[in-house]
């Protein structure tokens, strides 16, 4: 294959006065910002929904189940388009115009990615809680805890430990899924990747760099959560059996 390798182009100046490596760094910054913000939304909302789905209140379970069914069964890119193109047309004109012209695009992207991932996290939190023996809740209630207190002091601390490995996967996924937000105008890593290919045609170099960058982001997340997992391990609990 007669490819013209040129790693130096990263240090050349682009049309906007920045160098190409600075484009990559700015893309990394946006990717990280979108991913972490979405992760925060997803963890919060996902936990609330996950808990709702294990309560004895039927309507809470129904709301949670409907949410998960809806958001898990629609492709992420379609959800982003719904938030970006469709929702502004459905709301009253004034709000629609505000959404289209003043609302920063990152908000749409974070809402889209966050709500999508929340459905997945809700499923995991629910299965974590359901993995606990029913006796734990009864014991808590017998001790005079309210329903909420059995969650707060008995069930959730264990449930989170059980599902931490699954949450680690989800946290890594969110970095990878964030690439889709280029479709709603976020200037993140994948967007910069496409721009740099178009400008320089040095496809292989930039593909290698961007691949490594995504790998690194996901890997750092993995190591961080592995550390959390180790620190929060309680010897003797179900989740404490792996590793020493």
């Amino acid at each position, binding site marked *: *294959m*007669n*490819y*013209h390798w*040129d790693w130096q182009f990263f240090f050349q100046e682009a*049309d*906007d006065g920045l160098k190409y490596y600075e484009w990559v760094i700015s893309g990394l910054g946006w990717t990280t910002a979108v991913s972490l913000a979405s992760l925060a939304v997803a963890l919060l909302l996902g936990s609330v929904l996950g808990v709702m789905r294990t309560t004895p209140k039927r309507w809470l379970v129904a709301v949670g189940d409907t949410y998960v069914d809806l958001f898990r069964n629609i492709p992420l890119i379609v959800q982003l388009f719904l938030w970006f*193109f469709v929702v*502004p*047309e459905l709301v009253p004109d004034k709000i629609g*115009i505000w959404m*289209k*012209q003043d609302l920063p*695009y990152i908000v749409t992207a974070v809402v889209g990615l966050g709500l999508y991932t929340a459905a997945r996290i809700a499923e995991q939190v629910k299965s974590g809680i359901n993995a606990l023996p029913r006796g734990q809740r009864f014991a808590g209630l017998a001790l005079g805890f309210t329903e909420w207190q059995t969650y707060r002091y008995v069930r959730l601390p264990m449930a989170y430990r059980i599902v931490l490995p699954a949450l680690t996967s989800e946290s890594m996924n969110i970095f990878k899924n964030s690439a889709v937000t*280029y*479709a709603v*105008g976020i*200037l993140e890593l994948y*967007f910069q990747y*496409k*721009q740099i*290919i*178009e*400008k*320089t*045609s*040095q*496809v*292989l170099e930039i593909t290698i760099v961007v691949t490594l960058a995504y790998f690194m982001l996901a890997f750092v997340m993995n190591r961080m959560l592995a550390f959390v997992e180790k620190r929060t391990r309680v010897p003797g609990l179900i989740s404490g059996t792996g590793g020493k």
Partner: protein
Amino acid sequence: MRKSLTALAVCLSAIGLAAPAHAELTGTLQKIKESGSITVGHRESSVPFSYLDADQKPVGYAMDLCAKVVDAVKSELKMPNLQVKYQAVTSQNRIPLMQNGTIDLECGSTTNSVARQQQVGFSVHYFITSVRMAVRKDSGIKDIGDLNGKPVATTTGTTSDALIKQNEKGKHIDVKNIYGKDHADSFLMVESGRAAAFVMDDILLAGLIANSKNPSDFAIVGPSLRDEPYGVMLRKDDAPFKALVDKTLIGLMKSGEAEKLYTKWFMNPIPPRNVNLNFPMSPALKAAFASPSDKGVE
């Protein structure tokens, strides 16, 4: 033992016989001769250059020109039964696929730029596009200066967005750049009022407008920010093949056949929806036909 010796002899004589015929062939022509096939890279939605019709067959102005090139290859190599394969490409993979030999020529809407010439070669130009902007008629935007402070759409991964930036400097206007995933997306941004204008190759804008719900709502306005020439993409440093492609295209331009093909695709209803782009030949393109060039843009 005897069998393998016979086989060796057959091989040797085959090489001996074949060699003189091959001697002067190099690069792509040699590859075509040896494989007995030529692979044409095409786009899927570059209307009217290279796109899929209702039967998922690649058609278009560039495809018609390339069919003539393929005919020329057939007669040059005296291979009337040359097998012609088609391979869909995108703006991301067209250059690597050319370099690794998957495609032998790309017939689409690829701008011949100096940066790309580091990687691939280009034929003489068969189309010149001008970068202009599509606006809603009711927006009152007539010129680039009217864009000050407004959101302006362009498409991720195309060359046109730099022009907004350059013009920002030149004319001291400040626009908010927003990016659509593809041309349809960027156009939707103008249609839905997210963007005041969509800056892009005028021919692509004409195609989007012609296919929109109400073509009369939109207009292409403003000066040409830049002219970009399209060429057939070839492998780099493959002079014999490029000479053949250029000779064929220049022949079509001189004989008036290229202009007939232009009229067929740009001034008449075209598949799949029988929409007429009504896009007359620009003076720049007439000049390019009169004196063919393969000089890339910066």
